[in-house]
């Protein structure tokens, strides 16, 4: 396959940045998207040009590190797929692809396609956990949990924290990310105790970080590589409201 790539290059956070065009003449359809970038980078390096910086690690769709906007869609055109699991057979010979970093105020660009997502960590720090210390936990089978509830918790817990939801949202809202964590813990008896306080703290931190508000356009759900449902956002709204009034 032959491809034309328009790739975002930006030296550092201060640099204005811009698109750079590269031609690839020999792309195998069995390559993953990131392997295609590897080939380009090896080629650049051999020519003495600095390779394109992009984030990646596990390359099996679970670590949430890769973060590419491909033709304006986070992780590219395949539904429920991270960029590292996207394969070149999805594209056609002769295609032109535009590759950019996540765009959001709360995800500043570090270099080229690499952004800083530590704002997500700070949202979790604000309350995305069950406040238990190590030791002293009761037997795991002490509290039975209906399978259906545990399954809903697991659906939400599948979030990989990649930030595609933010990148897809016209408001750069982190609502789906926050709702997934709140939904995961809120559906389990262990997490229910702090449900309202958690919702309040995480939403406040989200605002603090400069993420936008949710206007229910659901682009987040469409972009989510783990296909997390926007229903969790509705639940978060409810818990947040309750949290405001109950003061707990």
């Amino acid at each position, binding site marked *: 396959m032959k491809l034309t790539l328009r790739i975002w290059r930006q030296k*550092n956070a201060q640099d204005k940045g811009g698109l750079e065009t590269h031609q690839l003449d020999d792309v195998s359809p069995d390559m993953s998207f990131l392997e295609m970038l590897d080939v380009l980078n090896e080629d650049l390096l051999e020519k003495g040009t*600095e390779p394109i910086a992009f984030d990646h690690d596990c390359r099996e769709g679970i670590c949430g590190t890769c973060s590419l906007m491909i033709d304006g869609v986070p992780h590219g055109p395949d539904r429920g797929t991270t960029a590292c699991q996207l394969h070149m057979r999805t594209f056609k010979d002769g295609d032109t692809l535009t590759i950019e970093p996540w765009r959001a105020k709360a995800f500043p660009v570090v270099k080229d396609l690499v952004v800083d997502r530590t704002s997500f960590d700070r949202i979790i720090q604000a309350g995305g956990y069950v406040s*238990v210390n190590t030791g002293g936990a009761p037997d795991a089978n002490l509290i*039975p949990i209906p399978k259906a509830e545990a399954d809903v918790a697991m659906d939400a817990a599948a979030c990989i924290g990649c930030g595609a939801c933010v990148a897809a949202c016209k408001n750069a809202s982190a609502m789906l990310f926050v709702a997934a964590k709140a939904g995961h813990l809120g559906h389990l008896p262990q997490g229910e105790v702090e449900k309202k306080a958690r919702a309040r703290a995480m939403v406040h931190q989200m605002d603090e970080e400069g993420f936008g508000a949710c206007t229910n356009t659901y682009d987040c759900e469409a972009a989510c590589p783990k296909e997390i449902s926007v229903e969790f956002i509705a639940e978060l709204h409810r818990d947040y409201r309750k949290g405001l009034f109950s003061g707990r």
Partner: protein
Amino acid sequence: MQLESKVPAGPLTEKWDKHRAEMKLVNPANKRKFRVIVVGTGLAGASASASLAELGYDVDAFCYQDSARRAHSIAAQGGINAAKNYPNDGDSVWRLFYDTIKGGDYRSREANVYRLAQVSNHIIDQCTAQGVPFAREYGGLLDNRSFGGAQVSRTFYARGQTGQQLLLGAYQALMRQVHLGKVSIYPRSEMLDVVLENGRAVGIVTRNLMTGEVRSWAADAVVLATGGYGNAFYLSTNAKGCNVTAAYRAYKRGAGFANPCFTQIHPTCIPVSGDHQSKLTLMSESLRNDGRVWVSKTTGDKRAPGDIPDDERDYYLERRYPSFGNLVPRDVASRAAKQVCDEGRGVGSSGLGVYLDFRDSINRVGEDGIRQRYGNLFHMYEKITAENPYQVPMRIYPAVHYTMGGVWVDYNLMTTIPGLYAIGEANFSDHGANRLGASALMQGLADGYFVLPYTIGDYIAQAGPSGAKSTDAAFTDVESEVNERTRKLLTRKGKRTPDSFHKELGKIMWDECGMSRNAEGLKQAIQRIPELREEFWESVRVTGAREELNQTLEKAGRVADFLEFGELMCRDALQREESCGGHFREEFQSEEGEALRDDEKFAHASVWEFKGDGAEPALHKEELEFENVTLTTRSYK
């Protein structure tokens, strides 16, 4: 080098309790005066950092990823073992201990493994309390499944994402401590060296991967939770960033490195598709619960799998190992796959693959039943191969997955350097020569939640504050060494990329020190690797500058260490003249091709001591004493 295992005296079942009763404690009010550095935020690192902070210590936690939540523990799929015996199928702490010792081919320390089995049940309780959404039965209680090397169902799981869910539990506990001000977290930071004062580990030197800043950090103890070195083979199931640097630098500063040749080749990975391949993807071993492994009985059979009738298929694991069948341990399954492929019966275009077939299970429990159990794995397989495994059998082939070898530690998880600890995959302790499935998660969390928080207190209570400051000469000297090395990498201006060296090293390692090894090949590798290393330092090309995000520089530094470490792996494989677990020496096999262990000569951990660049490392031995189990030939027939 002194190798004192410090295993407490007394009966096996009482050692840990007795030791806990005798360990020195640090007064709660004094704990906040001590600082512990933890490098790595996977299951071991995150659980240790959180637990130490909860106890009151100040913790500095570092990881190379952009967030602690992305450490590679996250990719573990299948599950975590514990001796809960919820299914009432005869499990016990003793049986988990025995299976792990036997599965490790009797090359691990009894006392450590027994302790691991003892604390396994607490892990499940702890994780459940944190909100880990383990799979449940309809009655609301926890579900279990079977894994290789065991005849009981003791594996807890969260769909095919168990590692992710356990890591998120530990990560959330860690984030809570960051919020409470007890942990300072430094993502995108790579440890480049450990610093010693008067023989004691007192800190580390890191490079900030965003800014390139090289900086020293002082503490009272240092914990390495930096994972394994499977990427020495270039292609492995490890994340791209996984590396040996932290452990190897510790080795160069005097920490003994144990059994580097013990690497695990996982039997169920998606086969390589071409030269562009950057990593290999694992298909969880849990699939072997319902999938049947086979190849054609005839060599060079090019028929589609569906056209090969049952009586012309060789279900070779079921045939050779009737009692464990498709659930034989990983080393046995991997070698058997290699054998049938060597015979020319492999499948797929490369001939390096075998079928993992779900036809019979789908007929038994339906497609939905299989989707419930393995939906995300089937989805992932289809993404990568463009084949639908509900309709055609999966093609699988072994790939490097885990490293049992690691930094040598005593019973307290301390290395041969006082004040330096190694936990999780980074240490060598619990899995011997072969790790059983679902035991890596167990060990990482056992070390981090339930062992290290006790043993490090004992050390701190006795050793007292280190008194080290990051401006001490010991730190500035190491910083200069680190800077000099970086300068060298940036000024070679050669022709070859770091990745090209890594691939070449990986091929040597896979060919000569992979699934099967022999003296001749290993000797060649020991000769070839230093040549490659020399070429690297002459002609590697690294672009960009030091004071910025520079992924080529990061890569080059890691490859440079693999180019030294690979040689140590080969040396270790050469001296171990027996076949045990994942280490298969072709010279030592039975007539049926099974591994031949030599307990007379090799019932020990081989521990290597660094003797200087260019000098041969010294070999030390920790004899393994088995008082509670009888060493038998491992048979899964």
